[in-house]
């Protein structure tokens, strides 16, 4: 029996505001436990929350960028549950009037375009961090993260494959980065996805019972979680069982999901309107201003790169998929106006060195305009390509300025054709055995001779010139 998988996504993204959603505590990641905490975010009695304007601004930005309607009159609600990660015993969220509704994000998988509908986007506060303490067999609570602003972006159940989910998340991540609302560092938990998944036999249109997998925090883990849960549900059905609606936790190390205890997630949150926060009214002018300030978004940028620069679509997808690669591309391009070269360097050396040095693209930190300068130096034959790659490695690791570095280390190409010829003649004279082989028709020998010449020239000659001179001198023999 064949099955159809249906999935919906709830994505939580931490906003890159300086302060928390309802107080002036810093949102900075990684401080000592409970050092970014005040009487408001620790839920002391008698305190009152005041909304951070920037959170609303960011929510509108994401709403517009994902084609949503902005709910011009919206407000907060209380979601009640007892768990030590929330000191107030409720989370301030939006249930009845979320700030954005009815949007969509366009994705493309294997050349097929599809619109994934967005049900809603709402603002809420993040919870604290629970740390298990094995020594005392207890839990330690750090409220630094408690009150950090979140947007929850809820899709419609429009996904049928893991590839579609990854394409959507990639696009969403790019949108969140382009609009500057989140750095989307998955390893720091600033982008987290919950996957709702159900399967049904192809013979029916009625959706199966869904399960929810919580807080999966890497694209690869999401792909594995989807595949694992799909298989599990099909097995349950084929064995004559029934899928139970429940929350499951994906354990990426074990490659399996586990049901969370039902008592722990009794889904009765008794939402009610938050009395401590007044409603938000977003004027037409506010929306118009955010629209007018909207940066170029991933789709538009991709289209422009394809049309204006004639770059391969694959390369454009990779580069425009990350705000940070776009920054490298645009700054280097501004310095040299050689789009194909810049793209090739990014796809080649930049990404290679990033992998080699385990650097995340957002942490690549050399002066990007210098890449443009280096490209011009190659174009003007000041350095050859192999040398340029060495120079670039220095730029990448130590942020050297290419022109100066080349000068200081004497890496300029040998422009003196007489010198090249001198070296070639000497190398040919020193390698009679190779010449004999060449005369017997072994063409490969020229490559060895080429290597010897470049070695003598310390790699600083134009390989084309050297090759041509070798051919000329061999012909004379």
């Amino acid at each position, binding site marked *: 029996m064949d099955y159809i998988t249906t999935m919906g996504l709830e994505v939580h993204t931490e906003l890159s*505001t*300086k*302060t928390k959603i309802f107080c*002036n*505590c*810093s949102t900075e990641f990684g401080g*000592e*436990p*409970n*050092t*970014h*905490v*005040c*009487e408001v975010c*620790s839920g002391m009695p008698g305190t009152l929350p*005041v*909304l*951070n*304007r*920037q959170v*609303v601004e960011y929510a509108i930005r994401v709403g517009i960028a994902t084609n949503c309607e902005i709910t011009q009159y919206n*407000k907060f609600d209380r979601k*009640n549950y*007892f*768990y*030590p990660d929330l000191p107030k015993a409720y989370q301030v969220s939006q249930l009845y009037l979320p700030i954005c509704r009815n949007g969509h994000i366009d994705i493309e998988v294997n050349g097929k375009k599809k619109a994934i509908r967005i049900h809603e986007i709402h603002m809420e506060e993040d919870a604290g961090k*629970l*740390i*298990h*303490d094995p020594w*005392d*067999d*207890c*839990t*330690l*609570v*750090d*409220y630094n993260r408690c009150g950090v602003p979140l947007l929850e972006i809820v899709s419609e159940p429009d996904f049928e494959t893991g590839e579609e989910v990854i394409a959507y998340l990639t696009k969403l991540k790019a949108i969140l980065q382009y609009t500057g609302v989140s750095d989307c560092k998955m390893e720091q938990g600033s982008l987290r996805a919950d996957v709702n998944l159900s399967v049904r036999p192809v013979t029916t249109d009625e959706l199966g019972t869904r399960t929810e997998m919580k807080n999966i925090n890497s694209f690869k883990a999401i792909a594995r979680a989807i595949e694992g849960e799909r298989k599990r549900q099909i097995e349950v059905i084929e064995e004559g069982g029934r899928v139970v609606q429940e929350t499951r*936790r994906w354990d990426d190390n074990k490659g399996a999901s586990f049901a*969370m*205890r039902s*008592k*722990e997630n*009794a889904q*009765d949150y*008794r939402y009610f*309107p938050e*009395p401590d*926060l*007044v*409603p*938000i*009214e977003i004027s037409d002018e506010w929306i118009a201003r955010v629209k007018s300030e909207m940066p170029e978004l991933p789709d538009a940028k991709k289209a422009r790169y394809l049309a204006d620069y004639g770059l391969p679509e694959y390369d454009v997808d990779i580069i425009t998929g990350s705000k940070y690669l776009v920054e490298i591309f645009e700054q280097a391009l501004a310095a040299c106006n050689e789009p194909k070269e810049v793209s090739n360097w990014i796809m080649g050396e930049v990404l290679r060195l990033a992998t080699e040095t385990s650097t995340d693209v957002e942490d690549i930190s050399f002066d990007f305009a210098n890449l443009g300068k280096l490209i011009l130096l190659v174009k003007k034959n000041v350095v050859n390509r192999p040398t340029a790659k060495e120079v670039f490695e220095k730029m990448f690791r130590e942020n050297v300025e290419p022109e100066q570095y080349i000068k200081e280390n004497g890496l300029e190409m040998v422009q003196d054709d007489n010198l090249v010829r001198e070296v070639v003649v000497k190398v040919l004279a020193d390698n009679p055995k190779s010449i004999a082989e060449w005369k017997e028709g072994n063409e490969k020998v020229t490559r060895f001779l080429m290597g010897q010449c470049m070695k003598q020239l310390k790699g600083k000659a134009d390989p084309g010139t050297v090759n041509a001179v070798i051919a000329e001198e061999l012909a004379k023999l």
Partner: protein
Amino acid sequence: MKITDEMIDYIGILARLQLDESEKESAKNEMEKIINYMDVLNEVDTTGIEAMSHAFPVKNVFREDEVRPSVDRELITLNAPKKKDGCFQVPKTVE
């Protein structure tokens, strides 16, 4: 509306309250009174009156996104029955 034993038990679980039999009885009575009062409210004719969640017509109260110092950790954790390594210490939570 009648508040049943099951309802009281369920609300007890949600509120993390352990009630003995006499407490359950009195909670049942009190809750029933509250719920029944809603019937009184329901008798009021509210046609044409917009639902409201706040008593005052105030909107858009915002704060600028500027960091101010947090409260000293010693002070924030002062009331904690137990603490360890700068954290609030609580009974083990089960994932």
